[in-house]
């Protein structure tokens, strides 16, 4: 039996709001970030109805990696939340918000090397998600980069700099 609501918190909640604002408003990126930060302080957990999200193609059109870290599946809390059973088979997969912590970039670089890290980053198709991953993992990538291959290369370089800095500081 499928669960009809999905709880989001932390980075997953932020990612959801960012996509929502990008799709439905003319806010600038800075304004979006400010609102997202405000919402994060105010809202501990967000519960979404799956049915509503499936219909909202603009908000959830991008699929994500298999194991987002902070998504908690929850059953409906009260009868009022229960939606009617679907009468037709689902045709579209349920989109999952992108988890920017699904790949530990620095750990993967150190344990698997550059090629393995690049391989893992290949699983992220969207430039927006790559940029979100870089920002959440504090990896500096150029603001002018737009294509996924450029962003992946920049993420690897930033991780290499991070490791080199730490080694230098310890010497």
């Amino acid at each position: 039996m499928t669960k009809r609501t999905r709880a989001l918190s932390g980075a997953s909640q932020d990612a959801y709001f960012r996509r929502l604002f990008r799709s439905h408003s003319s806010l600038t990126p800075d304004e979006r970030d400010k609102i997202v930060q405000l919402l994060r302080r105010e809202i501990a957990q967000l519960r979404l109805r799956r049915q509503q999200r499936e219909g909202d193609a603009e908000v959830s059109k991008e699929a994500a990696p298999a194991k987002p870290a902070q998504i908690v599946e929850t059953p409906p809390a009260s009868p009022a939340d229960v939606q009617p059973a679907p009468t037709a088979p689902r045709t579209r997969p349920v989109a999952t918000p992108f988890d920017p912590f699904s790949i530990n970039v620095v750990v993967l670089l150190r344990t698997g090397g550059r090629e393995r890290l690049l391989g893992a980053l290949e699983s992220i198709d969207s430039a927006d998600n790559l940029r979100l991953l870089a920002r959440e993992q504090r990896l500096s990538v150029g603001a002018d980069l737009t294509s996924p291959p450029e962003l992946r290369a920049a993420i690897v370089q930033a991780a290499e700099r991070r490791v080199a800095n730490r080694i230098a500081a310890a010497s």
Partner: protein
Amino acid sequence: MARFLAVSNRKGGVGKSTIAVMLANATAAWSGKRVLLADLDTQCNASLMLVGGEAWERASRAGHTVADYFYDRFEKVAEDESAYVLNNVGDVAHARTAPGRVSLLPGSQRLEDIQGELLLKHSKKDLHADAVAVQVRTRMKNMLKHFGMDFDVVILDCPPGLSFAALAALALADHVLVPFRPDFVSQFAMDRAAMLIERVETAEQLAGIPISERRYSCLPNYLKGDGHERLLIEQLALDHPVLNTRLPMLDSIARAFDWDETRKTMQEKYADALPHLRSLHDEIFRVPELLAKSA
């Protein structure tokens, strides 16, 4: 002879004193040990948490603090170690009953001054400065070791930075607990702390010591539970032994700073932090260096 556990990190604000006091209470209450907390931090927070301001001031006025102990011993003033120790301290009821109890070697704001003074006194002997520093540190270490005769566990609450007292504590400790906040700079602090504890000069030399054989454990503290913290802990665990215990940011831990004369149970004192403290206590006393004699 007691086992010596240092709680140390060169970085300040990582929760060293809070954790030292929590562990002292837990070890006395749950393991029935005679625990001495030696407060080597000039902020004296652990002392204030265990006896409150008035009793600490009385000890300070009476010349019964860690600074006085070092000074008197350097000057060969003959007074037994026990004169500097306050027994049955803390506001946890379980920790005040025999055989388990918590005692305190009170901290002093004058400890840094006294260390400088002792260095100057020994400098008159035409020794090289480094040799004098080593001599002072070694004497401090030996003086702290004397307390091992009367206790099962001695917890050394170290100051941030690298004072003589901190270095003496690290040299004496059977094991070092290094609390840290999982942020970017903590990695640098941890690398340096590890080299100091393991007495190596470079990161390469440190990497040559298997993680399972290190003399220290890292304790993630003040956790909010976000993904970035998890990443940093995973990164740190590539190079350092990290405990499975995680201490979250909890009001109950923040409130445990407050000392009052009302005796409490561990449950009343630490509330929802209790399972985390239990986990820390159980995990740290499984460490082989601490297990040997405190079991």
